[in-house]
């Protein structure tokens, strides 16, 4: 009611005041405003500053892969601290995707760890050399680390732990397995591959399931953005060996080698990504001399679903 009254009052005064008077009022006020301007400006710039900070903070909450065309599939990027399953058949470019993402992130100053359960460190470094990605300086600076782990010895340790804990893995897995090298605090980790870990467990699926769940949670607790490579069929219907990883992971990126006559064409899809908007389509991808390149607007002509 008060509000209405004041509005009414304001309205009447303005209406009652002749044009010139109104103008005079304005001019009377303007020197005051002029005096206040610097302060007012300061306030605006502070507001702008805080808005900008919010923006950068928001941008900092997402990880960019730096892969040409790929980030355009995502609204802002991959949310920091999330786990992403990178699934695909043989030769679809899973390792390249992860190596390139980690290399680009390391170049931006983020600490990255590539955990290989398959290829040797030398071979992975050779891949980086093939694309002319200079990893040496990044390694020296402690920004990029490639570590090879033996899946079978790790499995034995996990089994022993499981036996002790009567089926429940409740202890700090890093303390026992040293998944992350001591003194290294990575922002991004790539695990290549969970398929190798699963096969090292053999028929002990229960043990693998407990371990993999703990591993996902462990990285999550440390707010590490993690990429888990999963070897699948060329046209997968499930994206991991046990089928639970795609539920545990916040995101699933699927890489395809689609059949077109007697050749195969590369394609890629962001199947899911919790907490981030993304395009839902299969797009063309190529592995060039410079690494992976994604073409968000390019339709693929290879057969999907074969």
């Amino acid at each position, binding site marked *: 009611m008060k509000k209405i009254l004041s509005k009414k009052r304001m309205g009447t005064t303005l209406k009652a005041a002749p044009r010139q008077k109104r103008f005079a009022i304005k001019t009377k006020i303007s020197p005051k405003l002029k005096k206040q301007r610097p302060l007012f400006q300061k306030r605006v710039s502070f507001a702008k500053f805080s808005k900008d900070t919010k923006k950068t903070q928001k941008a900092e909450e997402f990880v960019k892969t730096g892969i040409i065309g790929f980030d355009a599939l995502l609204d802002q990027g991959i949310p920091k601290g999330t786990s992403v399953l990178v699934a695909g058949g043989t030769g679809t470019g899973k390792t390249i995707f992860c190596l390139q993402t980690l290399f680009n992130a390391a170049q931006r100053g983020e600490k990255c760890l590539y955990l290989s359960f398959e290829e040797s460190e030398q071979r992975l470094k050779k891949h980086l050399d093939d694309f002319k990605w200079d990893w040496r300086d990044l390694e020296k600076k402690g920004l990029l680390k490639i570590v090879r782990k033996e899946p079978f010895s790790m499995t034995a340790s996990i089994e022993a732990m499981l036996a002790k804990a009567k089926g429940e893995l409740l202890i700090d897995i890093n303390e026992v397995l040293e998944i992350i090298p001591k003194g290294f605090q990575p922002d991004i980790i790539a695990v290549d591959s969970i398929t190798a870990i699963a096969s090292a467990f053999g028929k002990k699926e229960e043990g693998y399931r407990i371990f993999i769940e703990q591993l996902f949670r462990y990285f999550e607790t440390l707010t590490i953005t993690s990429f888990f490579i999963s070897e699948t069929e060329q046209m997968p219907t499930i994206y991991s060996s046990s089928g639970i990883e795609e539920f545990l992971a916040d995101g699933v990126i699927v890489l395809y080698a689609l059949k077109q006559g007697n050749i195969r064409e590369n394609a890629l899809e962001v199947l899911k990504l919790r907490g981030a908007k993304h395009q839902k389509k299969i797009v063309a991808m190529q592995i060039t001399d410079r690494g992976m390149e994604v073409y968000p607007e*390019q*339709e693929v002509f290879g057969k999907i679903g074969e």
Partner: protein
Amino acid sequence: MNPLQIRKKVVAQLTKIKSKQGIYTFVSKPEDYFTVNKAIISYLTKNLKFCGVYISLNNSCKTMLDLFDKEKIDTKKLWFIESADKEQKSKIKNCVSLHSNQSLTELSLSISTACKNDMIKFVFLDSISTLLIYNNLETTERFVHYMVSKIRNLGFFAVLISIDEEKSNKLIPILSQFCDKIIKI
């Protein structure tokens, strides 16, 4: 019809087209195929002074260059995309080699890359009939439709060559839906 008559017919048809944009399909008899191709390229590069992309799925880039040189066509105005020279990748500067006639995504990407050049004004696809040898009707149709839409958006002039034979003729009614004109020579 002798080559001169064919040439005259092609030029007459091209002169009728007033727009410098649009998609046109030329259907030629197998024996007239080379004459038709040469006549169109000659008109586009000499008369209209256009630079363009020549997609050669039948012959190697080298074969086409020799052929055009004989016709005194300025080959510097042409950017080639070839898939025929599978054994040895082309070392010619203005030529890109595809892995296969079935790599339609790769072909599409190569066309897109070539079209980024500001000089490019036309795209010449030689030929739809070859695409149909390596790809099924449905895939070829999807590819041509996709490319035609893309070229149209770019505002280019495009010529699609098709041989007058049973398999290719199945595509003509579909092509007529999204091409500006089907020209039978």
